[in-house]
């Protein structure tokens, strides 16, 4: 463990990736993500790594595809509009069963939207980060320290299951500063016997590919991949719970809104309303088992988001109509205030008491 230092979320993310063995970063600047690329551009040349500012986001993600094919820990980062551009390449990476780390420091949308923080790429991250039948692992940190910790976990699980991992941050987490410490550096990660890194006539060729000439062959490959997804859904759901055990109302919030919601829970408890917070750490797989466990004792769940209501779909799917599920959110770069969240819960509880 390193000494404690005060860092921006974006800088800490870049340092964490380097310490997790990433030596190949391909990016393109966009606010509010730019510090990730800026940090990489300063550090990579000093440690023999590669920082490459590509000509576009599309080029950057395809460089990740190439680097990941060779078995190295590769990374790219962007903000919302840039991630949209990357989705074709992400689909190819998933279709080639390659691990890599993709970072989205979310900002407001749609379109160019704005540069203020948002969480309105939830659907994109968990449902459609490209065409075709596939998933990516999605991690949602809520503190600068957790940004660091999840970068390590994201690489490990991406390699374990041979699939891309997405770290879903937002402008607020990226720009804010908090004290962090870093785990000791690791090198390279897991063994990768599948990597196309030069066979030296000692083994058969490894081929990295996402094209299948026969329909039944493609179907078989996708079905096998989904069997792996089922294992991940069973084993890798992660969340943190705060005062949920006796809660009448459970707020479900990730990332920056979970910090706002935790303040709201404290206020509500002080007002005599038994509120709790369930914070998903993995958005895919979504921690539905933890949510379901609370159905018998809650009067309702409230999904709190910086969007028009996207994760609330997953809360509803988990709850299966067995408890009321509400939504409160602000969007377009507006951060909900703890007092607004308190008000939303009080309304759910039947108005002022």
């Amino acid at each position, binding site marked *: 463990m390193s*000494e404690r230092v005060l860092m921006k979320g974006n800088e800490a993310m870049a340092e964490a990736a380097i310490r997790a063995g990433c030596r190949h970063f391909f990016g393109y600047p966009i606010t509010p993500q730019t510090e990730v690329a800026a940090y990489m551009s300063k550090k990579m040349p000093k440690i023999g790594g590669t920082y490459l500012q590509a000509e576009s986001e599309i080029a950057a993600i395809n460089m990740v595809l190439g680097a990941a094919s060779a078995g190295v820990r590769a990374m790219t980062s962007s903000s919302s509009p840039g991630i949209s551009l990357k989705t074709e390449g992400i689909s190819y990476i998933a279709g080639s069963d390659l691990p890599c780390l993709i970072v989205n420091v979310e900002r407001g949308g749609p379109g160019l939207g704005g540069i*203020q923080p948002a969480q309105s790429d939830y659907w994109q991250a968990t449902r459609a980060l490209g065409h075709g039948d596939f998933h990516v692992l999605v991690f949602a940190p809520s503190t600068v320290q957790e940004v660091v910790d999840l970068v390590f976990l994201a690489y490990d699980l991406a390699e374990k299951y041979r699939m891309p991992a997405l770290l879903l941050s937002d402008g607020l987490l990226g720009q804010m500063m908090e*004290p962090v410490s870093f785990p000791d550096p690791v090198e390279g990660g897991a063994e990768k016997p599948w990597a196309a890194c030069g066979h030296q006539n000692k083994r058969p060729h490894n081929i990295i590919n996402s094209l299948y000439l026969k329909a039944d062959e493609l179907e078989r490959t996708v079905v096998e991949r989904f069997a792996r997804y089922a294992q991940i859904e069973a084993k890798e759901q992660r969340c943190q719970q705060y005062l949920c055990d006796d809660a009448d109302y459970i707020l479900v919030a990730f990332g920056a809104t979970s910090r706002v919601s935790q303040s709201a829970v404290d206020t509500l408890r002080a007002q005599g309303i038994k509120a709790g917070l369930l914070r998903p750490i993995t958005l895919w797989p979504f921690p539905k088992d933890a949510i379901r466990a609370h159905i018998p004792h809650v009067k309702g769940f409230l999904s709190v988001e910086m969007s028009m209501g996207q994760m609330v779909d997953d809360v509803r799917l988990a709850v299966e109509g067995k408890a009321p599920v509400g939504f409160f959110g602000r969007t377009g770069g507006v951060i909900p205030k703890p007092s607004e969240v308190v008000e939303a819960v009080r309304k759910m509880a039947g108005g002022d008491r």
Partner: protein
Amino acid sequence: MSKGGETVLEHLKSCVIVCGHYGAGKTNLTVNLALAAAQSGEAVSVIDMDVVNPYFRTADFQELFREAGIQLIAPIYANTNLDLPVLPPSVGAAIREKTGRLFLDVGGDDDGAVALGGFSALLEERGYSMLYVVNSRRELEPEPGEEAALLRRIQTASRLKVTHLVNNTNLGPETTSEVLLQSLPYLEEVSKRTGVPVLGAAAEERLAPHLEAEGLLPVRVYVKPPWS
């Protein structure tokens, strides 16, 4: 900021430029100094010269400044979705004014200091103090050499000279007296390498009573996340 801030201001010219590494705590220091000056009855203006950071900036304190009677001059599109670094013409006017107390909060390393360079002739004419803010806990392996190099790059970009170093070493809410005390040799080293004297050390009000260091500046934390 209480008495310490006012004492510090006595050592400074009426025009105070605050620069440094991004994230060193320039904005929080500027807000504290401005409030101290206003409290002692000075007519205070603050210019948010940050043309680099999208958020967490002096322009966030419009309300607080209004209550304290402080005039805020900010980039026209600060805190909007337009990533356009346009400074209003009132910046030049405020520097020319020559009366009252003026603070310039210069964001983001030497890139941010370029905007300041455009006003160097006016600032030379008025006279200024230029504070270089240091947080020695911003880097995993802080190097006085690199700190000195950044200071020089800021001087080149702004075409101005740093007159004082301010020690703003902190770990946010985890700051202890030890954190601050451990940083003193680092500041001395940066001072030795640059020939710029240390004006003092900023310490949160909760820590200040337990500290005995020269030129202590008790400060409050104004730059906070939206949930606290």
